[in-house]
């Protein structure tokens, strides 16, 4: 039988980001598939070796464009572990607010992204409009819409602006009130459910083989394996939240979990706003001359829970002003490369874009 070669990406409306899925197709069933990454490769790890520890603050958010804050958090945590810095209490809470806002933003974006493969653009437009209000809030907090460079080793760059609580609360109330509508137009919509139900199932027994983490794993194994729970960082051990899980991981259940996490994030932000103590937000790394600031020798792997799973930085310091080696563990590395190669075959060409969207394959963190 002759095979047909179809491509999803890089220049394709169904592909999120700049990567290419090559699919060998018979009829409309995918027989073989692989991801061709590397189109966003910019020598990131090499670049970080060539910048000082402080300079790198401006570089790290750019690893993964859709969710820059987790990069900053992971990097800051790693540096703090290596240099043994104690972060002020208030900074922890501000960090959590920013991280959870970022989580809401990316879940909204992923949920809106579901509008593209399933064809419901109204849902996409609404989700992106709400995401834009988060970006506006970020602009007020940090001064930037996307690349915030807000979480730095030693705390956060500056304190929250006055009156931001009201903005955040207004936004959260608005989002919460429309949560049901979001569900109705998306995953409860009778024209979308047949598309996403029972498609591109990720069996629970292969999760460990792939190394998938995050929602992809939790939707399959039915366990609350969330880094915020099992090895809490910041002050996640002091807020109450649940980790939504499921035992059957099809596209619908994954999107469902994203929406449920969104609710949990809303509640976390509210708790943070309530429990946040007053005080300093940053300890100075060094007295002046921050460019010559050195970090003691050591190896550390610091990881945070991103929307797609465990996102980690492996950092090696040889005691100098520059990091000796920084390795980035992209959260979507397993599902993007091995997942596409192993679990896309057998599905249909209609579903390939759904895998990319619901598993959260983010090409910049694969390529770096």
């Amino acid at each position: 039988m002759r095979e047909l070669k179809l491509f999803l990406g890089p220049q394709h409306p169904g592909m999120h980001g700049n990567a290419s899925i090559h699919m060998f197709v018979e009829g409309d069933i995918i027989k073989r598939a692989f991801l061709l990454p590397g189109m966003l490769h910019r020598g990131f790890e090499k670049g970080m070796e060539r910048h000082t520890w402080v300079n790198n603050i401006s570089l790290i958010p750019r690893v993964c464009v859709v969710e820059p804050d987790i990069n900053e958090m992971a990097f800051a945590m790693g540096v703090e572990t290596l240099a043994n810095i104690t972060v002020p209490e208030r900074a922890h809470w501000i960090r959590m607010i920013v991280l959870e806002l970022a989580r809401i933003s990316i879940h909204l974006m992923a949920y809106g992204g579901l509008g593209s493969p399933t064809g419901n653009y109204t849902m996409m437009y609404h989700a992106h409009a709400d995401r834009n209000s988060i970006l506006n809030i970020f602009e007020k907090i940090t001064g930037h819409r996307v690349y915030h460079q807000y979480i730095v080793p030693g705390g956060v760059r500056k304190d929250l602006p006055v009156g931001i609580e009201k903005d955040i609360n207004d936004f959260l109330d608005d989002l919460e009130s429309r949560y049901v509508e979001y569900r109705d137009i998306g995953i409860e919509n009778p024209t979308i459910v047949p598309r996403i139900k029972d498609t591109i199932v990720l069996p629970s027994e292969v999760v460990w083989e792939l190394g998938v983490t995050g929602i992809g794993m939790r939707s399959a194994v039915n366990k609350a394996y969330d880094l915020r729970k099992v090895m809490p960082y910041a002050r996640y051990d002091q807020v109450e939240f649940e980790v939504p899980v499921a035992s059957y991981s099809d596209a619908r259940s994954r999107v469902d979990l994203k929406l449920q996490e969104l609710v949990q994030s809303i509640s976390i932000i509210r708790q943070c706003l309530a429990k946040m103590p007053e005080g300093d937000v940053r300890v100075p790394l060094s007295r002046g001359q921050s460019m010559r600031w050195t970090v003691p020798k050591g190896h550390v792997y610091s990881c945070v829970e991103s929307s797609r799973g465990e996102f980690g930085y492996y950092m090696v310091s040889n005691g100098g002003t520059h990091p000796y080696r920084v390795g980035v563990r992209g959260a979507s590395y397993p599902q993007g490369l091995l997942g596409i190669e192993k679990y896309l075959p057998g599905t249909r060409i209609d579903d390939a874009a759904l895998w990319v969207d619901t598993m959260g394959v983010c090409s910049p963190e694969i390529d770096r």
Partner: protein
Amino acid sequence: MASLEFLVIIALLGGVLAYLVGKLSKVVGASLTVLVSGFIFVSVAYFGLNGSLDASITYLPFVSFEATDLYLGTSFGILVTFIFFMVSFFNPYFVDKFKYPSLYSMFYLFSLAGVLGVFFTDDFLVLFFFFELVVWTSLFLIPLGKSKKAASWYYGFSAFGSFSLLFAIFVMRNTAGSFNINDGLSMVGGSDQILVFILLMVAAFAKLGAFPLHIWLPKVLGNSPDPVTSVFSGGLEKLGAFVAVMGLVKLAPVGPVIEAIDMALGQYLIAILGALTIVFGTLMAIRQDDAKKLIAYSSMSNGGYILVALTLLNDTSVSGALYHVLIHALASTAAFLAIGAVNRQTGTTKMSELGGMIHKMPVTYIVYLIAIISMAGIPPMGGFVSKWLIFQSVINEGMILIAIATFFGSIGSFLYVFRPLAALFLGQELPEFRKVIKEAPFFMLLPMIILSGLNIFTGVHPSVILQYINNVLAELGVTELGITTWTLSGNNGDLYPALIAVVFGVGVVIAFIIFIVLKKSRKVDLMDTYTAGNFVYTEELLHYSVDFYAPIERLYEKHINIMKDFYKGIAKKVQEFGSFVKYFFFTNKPEITVLWVVIVLGILLLWGDLL
């Protein structure tokens, strides 16, 4: 000159001559078929249209031809001889590939003689004789192609049909007292009528390849040599339609009348079977990979239309059916010839192996395009007129279930006729064919172009032919269709085919003007195509031809083999019975066998005496 006997003899003698000449030179022998069939077609057409065919018999024993009321036979005769003539142009180009080229020419002309006899005789026994002549000659034509097994399938079903025809003839002989066709059909009545109806329908179904006796059709049409396929589809299948006209129209309506739709039960059942034929043919055609098999299934589906239309027994439907016989003969012959031409140039008809033929064979492509437009019933080709007539009567009768089938077949035909167009002619130009392939030679293009012209003509100006069909309707005792020079009137509206053609022309001219005044486009290579930014160098990877309709096929692929399994089951049972018989009769000791034979013969003789 115009003696039918003379024409039959010419065909037979021409066959023998072609055989002898073919021993010397294959091509000359095959070319002889062109001359002979051309001569026969011209004579039949000329004298048949003038009504001056001579039915007298001088030389041939037992044979008798019809003298009056010739319209039905003549119309079929002209059509089928025309198809034979057109296809014969292909013979010289294909004889090289056959194992027995001279035999091929001979059988080709013999079956032509058989066809002539079937359509013009007034005697059932002669009809049966010629029918068998056609069956046997065509039987030997089939295995010259790819599969010998197809011939055995064909023989099985044909024999089934022939014997039921023979049975029907004997039943009618019982009531009418003679073998005359018209007497037999008009005088038979009561339970005999039902029996004759069923038997005639079995014969017609077997010949037409209608559900449930369709298994042979795709096998034969898909595997026999290309000219034979064209002849089968355009000509020999129409024998079935001829028998169906006898059974459905000439015989009085059979069975109790259903009040709601004002239709006899027998007719209604046939209509349902016809509808099933349409649906089944369509569904099977959609999933074929071999272009010839695909068109074969479409032939089956179109046979269903003819059956459905014949059962309705009013002016639009019967004229629609007869017109559809003509249209389908022209269109499917043209399509088969086009695919035959591709087959000759490339050596395959598998759609998954071909692609981009249009760049080398544009004329063949145009011929195929016109043929499929006609087959799908799109104006301005002939298929639209016949389908319009059939729809008129189906809607007028208010038969919802039948209508679903006809609509399904009609829309489904877009699907399956498009597939060879896309996979075989269009798409990427595959490298293995890029250098070698040329357009087919002129004498192969000639019949295809003539057929295409007729396809267009039948769609633009059908009144001429429908006028003639009105004569047939009068002969069959059906009300005549309302025709003026340019328009047809159906049950619930008028049709102006020429106007549609003109308006279509105007539309195309407007579009062409828009196209030509705008900036000229830049010509790019076929491989310079959207690949989402990736680079591809292999043409095959970008040619979508395998499992073309995979999503819709998946919905019914579990249920396709029902009829095949049924027949396989029967064949298995027969085999078991055979081995059982063998066990008893043909043991190792010949004495026992002889004993058994004697006993059985004795019982049969005694039984016959007692009856």
